[in-house]
């Protein structure tokens, strides 16, 4: 035993954050990031375990102890290189990955105290590298002469494109919208994931030689079969882009948005900067967000920042079943979002101009567990009551957009509309076509989509090199 042996610090270095009362009124980033001193102090807590549970816990297997060790020793370029070796989008993952249920959940320190703040360290290293002027050129394998089309530039598509480009393949990435990034641009708000961070990582992917073709809706401008006449393989990373509604009376009244529309107007089109930006949004005084996932929390917090006085999360189950990350739920609550739990809308009422003015809800109670394992919400008969609202955001989840599957006849899909693909490789029923991310799993996380992109890239590489 070394005489220098220090007692392990069981507390993590706190993340500086904007005060709730302040941040609820601006779109600047809530969590402001570690300083160099904070990052070094936190990195020094890592005990460099022999059995690297954290690496196993990461869907893209970042060599976590290695980059933390480099960081601790001040070898910042090494830290960045190690990180980017497995993850093309570390600035994004450091901010939006649910580390608490992945790498940090299995951290040895978590048994006794707070796990290493892996996400915060990842963010620190990514941001440090981004700020450097002269970045070393990434290592790219010699050109293979093979061409791959990647459809969709969200996390799965960007990851697969980056990996394939590094392996020497010529990659063209098709995006339907006018900027690359998918849900990272239109969905996740600026105050959680600044858009210049996303674009910085998109630029990195481009620096690997990936060509990005914007404004191209595959299924319309070209079918998958047409793509395959130009490319040796295609990876479909289409996301789960279509919104679900409640299908109750009054749902098409003015002022009722899908979360996709509400967030797209706000984040992608920057309606919060109207009229400097041309796209408007109407956020009233009393906003109800239906649902309790991360998208619901994002919507509620965007509503607050755009002038709403009362923002409700309306959820049919109880707090324990809320699917949002704990951190997001707490952030929303601190900012003043009000949770109306065990509450389910029955119908909406409009004013004489066709604008929503109130919603009638049922009180709910929890019954027996359903197929998801959560207790089934059951309505209390005769419990109807009215909530006055002038804006509603339906954040019930999304399902796959059928544009590509419906124009690709021999691509097998499930009853839910997802593309059937092998989990380990991403291969589909159609030769030369791989799929991954939300289009296969239904709406999930950024990092799980990235994991799918990575596995598909490896499988595509293997296929291309055999031929």
């Amino acid at each position, binding site marked *: 035993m070394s005489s220098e042996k220090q007692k392990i610090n069981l507390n993590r270095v706190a993340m500086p954050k904007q005060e709730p009362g302040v941040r609820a009124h601006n779109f600047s980033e809530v969590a402001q990031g570690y300083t160099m001193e904070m990052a070094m102090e936190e990195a020094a807590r890592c005990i460099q375990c022999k059995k690297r549970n954290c690496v196993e816990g990461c869907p893209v297997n970042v060599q976590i102890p290695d980059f933390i060790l480099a960081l601790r020793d001040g070898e910042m370029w090494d830290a960045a290189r190690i990180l980017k070796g497995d993850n093309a989008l570390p600035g994004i993952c450091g901010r939006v990955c649910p580390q608490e249920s992945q790498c940090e959940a299995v951290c040895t320190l978590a048994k006794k105290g707070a796990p290493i703040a892996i996400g915060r360290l990842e963010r620190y290293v990514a941001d440090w590298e981004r700020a450097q002027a002269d970045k070393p050129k990434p290592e790219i394998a010699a050109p293979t002469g093979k061409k791959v089309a990647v459809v969709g530039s969200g996390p799965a598509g960007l990851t697969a494109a980056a990996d394939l480009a590094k392996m020497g393949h010529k990659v063209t990435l098709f995006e339907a919208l006018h900027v690359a990034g998918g849900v990272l641009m239109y969905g996740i708000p600026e105050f959680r994931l600044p858009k210049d961070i996303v674009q910085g990582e998109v630029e990195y992917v481009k620096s690997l030689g990936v060509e990005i073709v914007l*404004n191209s809706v595959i299924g*319309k401008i070209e079918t998958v079969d047409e793509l395959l006449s130009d490319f040796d393989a295609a990876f479909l990373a289409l996301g789960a882009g279509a919104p679900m509604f409640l*299908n109750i009376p009054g749902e098409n009244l003015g002022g009722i948005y*899908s979360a996709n529309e509400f967030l797209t107007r706000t984040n992608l089109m920057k309606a919060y900067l109207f*009229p400097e930006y041309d796209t408007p949004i109407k956020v009233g005084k009393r906003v109800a967000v239906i649902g309790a996932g991360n998208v619901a929390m994002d919507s509620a917090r965007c509503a607050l920042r755009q002038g709403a006085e009362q923002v409700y999360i309306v959820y049919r189950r109880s707090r324990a079943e809320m699917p949002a990350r704990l951190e997001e739920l707490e952030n929303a609550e601190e900012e003043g979002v009000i949770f109306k739990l065990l509450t389910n809308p029955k119908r909406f009422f409009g004013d004489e101009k066709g604008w929503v003015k109130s919603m009638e809800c049922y009180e709910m109670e929890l019954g027996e567990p359903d197929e998801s394992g959560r207790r089934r919400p059951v309505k209390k008969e005769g419990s109807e009551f009215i909530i006055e609202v002038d804006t509603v955001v339906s954040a019930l989840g999304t399902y796959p957009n059928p544009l590509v599957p419906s124009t690709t006849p021999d691509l097998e899909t499930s009853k839910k509309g997802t593309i059937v693909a092998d989990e380990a490789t991403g291969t589909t029923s159609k030769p030369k076509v791989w799929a991954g991310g939300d289009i296969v799993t239904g709406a999930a996380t950024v990092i799980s989509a990235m994991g799918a992109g990575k596995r598909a890239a490896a499988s595509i590489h293997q296929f291309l090199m055999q031929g």
Partner: protein
Amino acid sequence: MYKILRREDLTPQIHLFEIEAPAVARKAKAGQFVILMVDEKGERFPLTIGGWDVEKGSVTIVFMEVGASTRKLATMQPGDSLYAFTGPLGVPTHIENVGTVCCVAGGFATAIVVPVARAFKEAGNKVISIMGFRTKELVFWEDKLQSVSDELIMCTDDGTYGRKALVTEPLKEMMEQKRDINLVVAIGPTIMMKFCAKTTEPFGVKTIVSLNPIMVDGTGMCGCCRAEVGGETKFACVDGPDFDGHKVDWDLLMSRQKSYLDEEKRSLQLWEEHCHHQVRGKA
């Protein structure tokens, strides 16, 4: 990309742009639309495709200056490029030989009726077209619609050219005279399409309309363009824009179109102030 190759001012407020977009031109069909953005801070808004030239690699759009975005678009000149141009979107108009088709064109929508009328004509139909404008000065493309129609009826609201009538009047007469019309296609302002549908409904003549609700992405992602058709919620961008006019909930559609009236006024006012300053700056 998306360079303006040609500009034609059809009337002082109605403009035609031919845009360089070869991939869109290759796939475009009558009844489809594009979503465009004038600049980086612009809105995404839909315009129905007016024509396309595969060899030249161009797509034609025709628009009327109504709000800030279309006024901004109208300041662009040949050689300038649009920031974004996505298409072809939506389901093409279903073209088949049904016998006789009556195409009703309202105002600037004449430009998008022409390819639809041509497609019906080429499919072997007899095409009777009705064109309606507010006044003579606004009339354009009478010759183009004439060239793809067997019969053309011109109307103006004030009687300065053709019949003094709304388009619904000759349409109603045709219905009452029991002329053998198998299909009506009405494209124009929402109010015009609504009343065309109301005119034909009692006679049971199928009437297709091309809805123009507010859109954002245009690919089925946001649901902004939802309309109720036959009691079901439809997304105009992916399920349409063509629908059975007898089944559309017109009042809902019109109230949703007015969602941003205040903001549109504000944008327009700011745009006019901006233009005013620019003119003064140049003087």
